[in-house]
Structures are given as C-alpha cells and as structure tokens.
C-alpha cells in the first residue's frame, strides 16, 4: 500500500472538520477524493502532505509513518489550485527548485527539466516567467515542478478549478496519460463529479468531514450505499419504499428488484434510486419499456446538447416520501428528473404541460438509514422520563438508537436501561455506552464519534439553560427536550414558524417525526402585536398554507394558524387551547445561542420541546468560520 490513513482527524474550534478518515491506496493508483466544498477533502490532502497538522490518527506513506514529519521529509509532490508558482523564477528554475534543494548537479537539473517540459507539453518555454503563461500552462509548470524530484506520491488539490471548461478537459486527459506513464500513486481532490469519473481508478466520497464511500466510479454511480453519494454523484430520483420478497414496493406499486443482490427476507425500509436515464416515457401504459410509475405531466424540458433533460410531475403516491429531487415547499406532488437522448426526443417529442406515462427500467435500493437517535441519561428522574419517551419514539421510527449514560458507570447504566425495558423493546439497533463526563461533554464526545439526527435530553425547570446551549452547540443534531414526567407520546404538535428557508427545514423535520408518531400538527405563525401589517399577514398566510401542503405530502394532517401578540404567551395559549402535546421551534445551526428560545423554555414547561436546527440560518456564520480556517492552514 502506497498511502494508508488511519482514523485521521482534524478539529477546528473543537468541531471535527475531518472525522476519523481511514483509507488505503495501492501502488500506482489514481484515487479521487470527491466532496462538496467544506467537506474536509482538501484538509485530508494537506494532512497527508504535512501542510496541516492532524489532531489524531496516522498517515503512512510507503509503509513509513510520516504523521509527525514536516512536508520536506515526506517525499511527496503537491499541486495547488492557484498554481503557487515562484513568480520571480523562470519556468525552468521553478521546475528545478526541488532538485536544487537536493543538491542535484546543474547538468542533471537541466536534463530533468527538459524531460519534464517535454512531458507536460511546454518544451522550449523554460526561459519564460510564470506571469507570461496562461493559466493552463502555469498549472502544467506546477505539475512538472511537483514531479521533478520523482516523489513517491502525487497530491493534487483541485488543480483545474481555476481553469475554463475546455482547458480543464484537455488538462484532465493529459494528467491521466502522464500518471499512467509514470505510474506514480496519485490523490486528486475535486468537487466535480464528471472530473472524478473520468480520472479516478477509485473514488472516495466525503461529506461533513467523513469519508462515506469508496469504490470504482461505475460502482458508486450505479450502486451507492448512502443517500449522499447517490445524490452527489449525478442527478438522482430517490423515493422512500420497502423491500419485500417480490421486489421493491413503493406504496401500491411493486417493482422487480434489478440490481440489489441477495433478496432480503424481511421487509425493510429502503431508498429507491433511479437515475434520470433509467426513466422510460411513453404515450400509453402499454408502450412503456419498464414497469409503470404513473401518469404525469411534463413540468419543464431543457435542451442539454447530447441529451434532453425533463422534469416530470407525478401525483403523490400514497405512503411514498420523496427524498430527491426535493419537492418544492408547498407542493403536493412528486417531481421526477428524466433524460433522453436526442433520438428518443425526436421520436416522442414532449413539451411542457403535456401528459405521458412514466416507467422505470432500472432501479437500485439503498438501505434506508432512517432516523438515528441519541438518548442521554444521567440517572435523574427527568432524564429517565426522557429515556422513556425517546425509547417509544425510537421504536415507532425504527430508529437506530444509542443510549449514553453521562457520568454513570456501566452497571448503573444497565440498571437504568433495564428499568424501561418495555419501552425499548423492538428497537432495531440499540447501543449503550457509559461516558464518565458531564452531560454536555458526553453528548459532544458521542456525536463526534457518530452523527445523530436527534438527541433526546431530559431537562427540568431547575436545569441550567446553558446545558441546552452546550448540547445544541455540540453538533448539528436536532434536540428534543423532555421536561418533568412527560412520558405519554405526543399526539398533536404545534410547529412554530416564522417563514423563510430555515422554517421550511423546521416543517420538514417536524413532519417526519410527526409521521412516525402518527401525530397531527398545527402550523403556527405569530406576528408581533404592534406590527400587524397586511403584507406581513399575507406573506405568513402563504407560508402556512404551503407548509400545510408539504405536511400533507408526508401524510401528516396539519392546520395553519395565524396569531398576533407577544410570542411566549401566544405560544403557551395555543399549546393549551389546541390540546397540543409537543412544541416545535427552530434554531440556527451555529453559532448557537439559546437566547432565542430561552423565553419559550422559561418557567413551567410541561410538554416536550423539539428544537429543529437549520443550516440556512447559520450559513453566513459558517462561511465566516471556514474562511478563518483557511487562514489557519
């Protein structure tokens, strides 16, 4: 193995930006690390190069542990996105730099330099200065410079990101050819899936600091194991269904299972993936090339050169939740993406508004991870109530569940868990872990080890609101705060929204949870009493109605309610009046301040409160943080 990473971790302000990444790359392999910006892929590359220190884990190059070594002693070549050429040196001096610091003779430097200029297609340009070259040429120089000392490993950090499309394609082919010729083990970081497919022997898909999947390009595209890989590698239609012995069930429809090997004995919830090119279109049900999905309408067609892209609108299939493409907020139908080649488009022309039958001729089922829940107990009566309620939710939602005992030892934790055995029965995967730390610290430790959707926390009126803030600040999970002896399952949720992108997130997650609980919902918007402007009222009404439609798509009956008055009192009055047993409020991801929800939590709160986190509200703050981080590395 040329490159081995073992649990490589990097933290920034306490939060992992690279989280326990392990990977093995063989000799001469071209490996592509693919992920959206901020996924940690460049940080991984910089840690391999020694340009960024790692907080935990090891890097082995050619079997040699280089974790503590500076970049100078790692025997690597690195190509930067912005070329990073030495502006005051000629092209030849740039290329010879690595040889020169190794005290190679002048003749040897000249020979190697000519050789590399020839290799990257810049023969005769050795006397130029970098600023006299085009971007593509400069990146060729950077590549030659990195290869000159014959490194064991070549690392490229989005090298073609700053080039225009045509040159990028040309550079890609050149690079692939050079890499094959030299046989140098290569890691290439990019966010461009097309680039990844064309270059990589294998790909690794990263998101929020984790390496999710590794495999050959076609394998990852056709048979992804995670929702993220499925949607990030090209367009995907993802619907939530179930596997049975006959195949895949989507509501009333059943499809024979095409690509998933090994029939699953027990019915299992799955995400059904079909790519746009797997869609068959025909004017009648009988003409379809594959099993039918339904009759729909063309929402939009786009000419895209070699093929035609269509967005189709299908009526809602009962019991089927769409995951991708995301249905627009407030819509009550499915959207399906399809592509056809120009030949097919000519034979069966379709225009916006026209109806046709939609079929699927190939699909792939991914195990649906479902919700993952973290239940926290510290042995107190309040946390026991939280454990009990959380256990019931976990069972209903088929959630993967962990219970951590903060400050408890193994024996105490087992006793606590035994006490609520009935509530926990039937949970598909249950883990328990005792962590000798404070509640907030234990949550931080566990959520870093593994990502959770929802943390259930017992909190009494005497508990410090700072604890809530710390638990929310520990990660990006939603939090369910259970106060006092609230063990009955909520049957009616009050979802407080203020409109905007963040509130859409609140509605979606609250809807998912309410659906599992079989609960109904009220969507509440509160206008300030002295600022009741007609336009505001109209806007809020529109948002509430759209929200109710979105909840209906999730099979959650919901009623919109618009009130005006002081926030806390209005919410409390509505909770009582409507017979609600769960309050849902939104909170930004980070930096999180409990101040916004503190007034709602203040005083005697006798019902569970679900705090839904939204990435939108904190997008600005996050981008600031990542800019800072750039500065640091």
């Amino acid at each position, binding site marked *: 193995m040329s490159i081995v990473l073992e649990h490589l971790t990097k933290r920034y302000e306490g939060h992992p930006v690279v989280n326990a990444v392990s990977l093995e790359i063989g000799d001469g392999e071209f490996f592509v690390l693919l992920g959206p910006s901020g996924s940690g892929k460049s940080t991984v590359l910089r840690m391999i190069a020694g340009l960024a220190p790692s907080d935990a884990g090891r890097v082995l190059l050619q079997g040699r542990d280089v974790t503590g070594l500076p970049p*100078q002693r790692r025997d690597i070549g690195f190509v930067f996105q912005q070329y990073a050429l*030495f502006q005051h040196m000629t092209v030849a001096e740039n290329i010879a*730099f690595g040889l020169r610091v*190794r005290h190679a003779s002048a003749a040897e430097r000249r020979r190697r330099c000519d050789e590399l200029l020839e290799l990257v297609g810049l023969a005769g340009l050795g006397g130029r200065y970098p600023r006299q070259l085009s971007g593509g040429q400069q990146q060729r120089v950077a590549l030659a410079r990195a290869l000159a*000392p014959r490194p064991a490993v070549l690392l490229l950090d989005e090298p073609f990101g700053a080039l225009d499309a045509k040159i990028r394609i040309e550079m890609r082919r050149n690079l692939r050819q050079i890499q094959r010729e030299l046989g140098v083990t290569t890691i290439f970081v990019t966010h461009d899936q097309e680039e990844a497919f064309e270059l990589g022997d294998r790909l690794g898909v990263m998101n929020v600091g984790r390496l999710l999947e590794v495999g050959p390009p076609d394998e990852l595209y056709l048979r992804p194991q995670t929702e993220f890989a499925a949607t990030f590698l090209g367009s995907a239609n993802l619907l939530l269904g179930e596997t049975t012995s006959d195949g895949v069930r989507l509501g009333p429809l059943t499809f024979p299972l095409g690509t998933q090997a090994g029939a699953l004995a027990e019915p299992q919830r799955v995400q059904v993936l079909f790519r746009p090119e797997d869609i068959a279109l025909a004017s009648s049900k009988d003409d379809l090339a594959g099993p039918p999905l339904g009759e729909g309408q063309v929402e939009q067609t786009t000419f895209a050169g070699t093929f035609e892209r269509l967005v189709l609108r299908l009526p809602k299939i009962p019991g089927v939740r769409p995951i991708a493409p995301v249905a627009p907020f407030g819509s009550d139908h499915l959207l399906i993406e399809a592509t056809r080649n120009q030949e097919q488009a000519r034979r069966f022309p379709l225009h916006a508004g026209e109806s046709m039958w939609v079929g699927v001729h190939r699909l792939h089922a991914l195990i649906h991870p479902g919700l993952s829940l973290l239940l926290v107990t510290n042995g107190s009566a309040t946390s026991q109530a939280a454990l009990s309620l959380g256990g019931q939710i976990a069972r209903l939602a088929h959630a993967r569940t962990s219970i951590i005992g903060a400050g408890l030892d193994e024996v105490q934790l087992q006793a606590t868990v035994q006490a609520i055995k009935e509530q926990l029965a039937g949970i598909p995967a249950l883990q328990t872990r005792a962590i000798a730390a404070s509640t907030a610290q234990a949550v931080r430790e566990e959520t870093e080890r593994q990502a959770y959707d929802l943390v259930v926390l017992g909190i009494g009126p005497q508990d410090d609101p700072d604890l809530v803030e710390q638990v929310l600040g520990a990660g990006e999970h939603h939090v369910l705060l259970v106060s006092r002896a609230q063990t009955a399952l909520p049957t009616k949720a009050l979802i407080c929204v203020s409109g905007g992108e963040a509130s859409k997130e609140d509605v979606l997650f609250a809807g998912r949870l309410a659906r599992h609980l079989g609960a109904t919902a009220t969507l509440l918007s509160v206008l300030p009493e002295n600022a009741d402007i007609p336009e505001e009222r109209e806007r809020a009404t529109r948002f509430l109605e759209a929200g109710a439609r979105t909840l209906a798509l999730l099979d959650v009956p919901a009623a919109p309610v618009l009130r005006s008055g002081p926030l806390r009192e209005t919410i409390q009055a509505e909770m009582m009046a409507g017979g609600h047993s769960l309050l849902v409020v939104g909170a930004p991801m980070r930096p999180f301040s409990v101040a916004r929800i503190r007034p709602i939590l203040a005083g005697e709160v006798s019902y569970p409160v679900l705090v839904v986190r939204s990435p939108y509200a904190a997008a600005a703050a996050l981008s600031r943080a990542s800019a800072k981080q750039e500065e640091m590395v």
Partner: protein
Amino acid sequence: MSTVSLNSNNNANRPNGNGTPEATDSQPYQAPLPWGRWSLRAVALLYLALVLIIPLIFLAQNGLAQGASAFWQAVRLPVAWSALLLTLWTAAVMAAINGVMGTLTAYVIVRYRFPGKALLNAVIDLPLSIPTLVTGVMLVILFGPQTAIGAWLQQHLHIQIIFAPPGIILALLFITFPFVVRAIQPVLEAMDREPEAAAATLGAGPITIFRRITLPVIRLPLLSGMLLSFARGIGEFGAIVLVSGNIPFHTQTAAVYVLGEVESQDQLGASAMSLLMLAIAFGLVLLVDILQQRSPRQEVAL
C-alpha cells in the same frame, strides 16, 4: 517629510488586485464647477510653491551664490567633510541594522501569534510621535557616563555610547524604527502563502524558503524602507544634538555642523552643507519612489 513619505509608501504597497489608478481628472459623478476646478488647482500649487519650492530655491541660490567652487570649498573644509562622513556612515550602519531587525519584526508580527502582538503593533509607530529631542534625553538618561548602565559598559567593556558614534546610531535606530517594519508589513500580509508551502513540499527547509521564496517578494519594500530610514537619518538633529556631544572631527554630524555655522554667521558654510544634505535626501526619496512604483506590480502580483 518622514510622515508624508511613510503614507505614500503604504499606499504604494497595497495589494493591487484592482490596481487601476483612480482617475485624477474630472470625476464624472461630480457636477462640474468650471471656476472651482481651476481655483482649487491654483490654491494647491500656490501653497506648494510658498511652503516648499520658494524656500528651496532661496537655499540653493544662497548656497551657490558665490559659485560652484566656493560651494565645493565650503563642503570640503576638513571639519565639514568629517561631519558629513560621520553622518553618512552612522546612517548607513543604522540602515543596515534596521534592514535586518525591521524584517525580523515585521515577519514576527505578520506570521506569529503571541500575547501582546496588538500592543507591539501599536508601539512601533511611537517614535514618530515622540519629539526627537526627547529621544536624545532618554538615551542620555539610560547610557550617560553617570548612569549605572553607561558607567558599567565603559568600565568593563570599554564601550562609550553617549558622546560617541554608537550613541548616534542608537538615536537614529530609535527614530527610524517604524520605517522598515511598516514598509514590509503590508507586503508580507498580502503575500500568497502557497508558494512557501509548495517549496516545503519540494524539500526546502525554512531558511531556504525564506531566502529563496519570501525574501525576493519583500526585497524592494525592504530596500525602500532602508533608503527612507537612511534619508531620514542623515538629516536628524534633535535626537543627535544631545547624545553626540558635538565634538568636531569626532562626533559632530552634518546637521549639528550646520547649526554651528549658522550660529557663527557663516551663511555659506551652512547653506552649502544644507544643500548637499538636501540633494542626497532628495535623490534617495526619488529612488524610493521609483522602487515603490516597480514593487507592487512585479513582486506581489497575485
């Protein structure tokens, strides 16, 4: 002079991402005032003439009134010539020390985090606001023969600071402290760090990286900072007059010599030496200007 050139220095070194020079002529968003535009120029030019040009012309006229040979003789008087040489070599030593230490200080301020960094950054400009005479007083209090440090140095190491060239150099170092630091700092801050990282991956050690990658980028601002401090140094009077002791042929600098000539009514001697100092300073400032116009475009091109 010093403050003005420092400011222009900072402007010239600003990263030139959008380095198009601002339109100096008519600004399209302002309503044209035909009389206003020209009267403004007239006022500015007149002010320049009154404050700068006319005194300079009179000085030059005075210095050369009795012909070039008289001017040359006045300058070549042994006592005058030795004062000039002393001025030049002490300023040169100061500029060299400033070049090394100023680079180090700027590098540390830009690249490292340490407690008191903000304070250090603020203190650097302090010498600009301290009256130079006060600088002289401070040094005499610190190193004078009657003080503990001064006496100890003289007894044990036989180094005399006050009333000797080291005192002059120390005084010059104090007053020109910001010049090199402030010339390099913005360039270092705007500098792309990736080439240094690239050099590290190519096997270059920290010293090689500084010498081969960092230094070429800050070379011109460093040079202009040194020249500016040199120019400032040769004209210094206030800080030196106290520490030098003003001993002819030994510690009398050109500026102090000029004062002596004025006091003894030798107008030719005073204005000839003044004119020569002026010419040197003017030449240096001109050189700095040329360097700074080259520097950002070619060396910090991002």
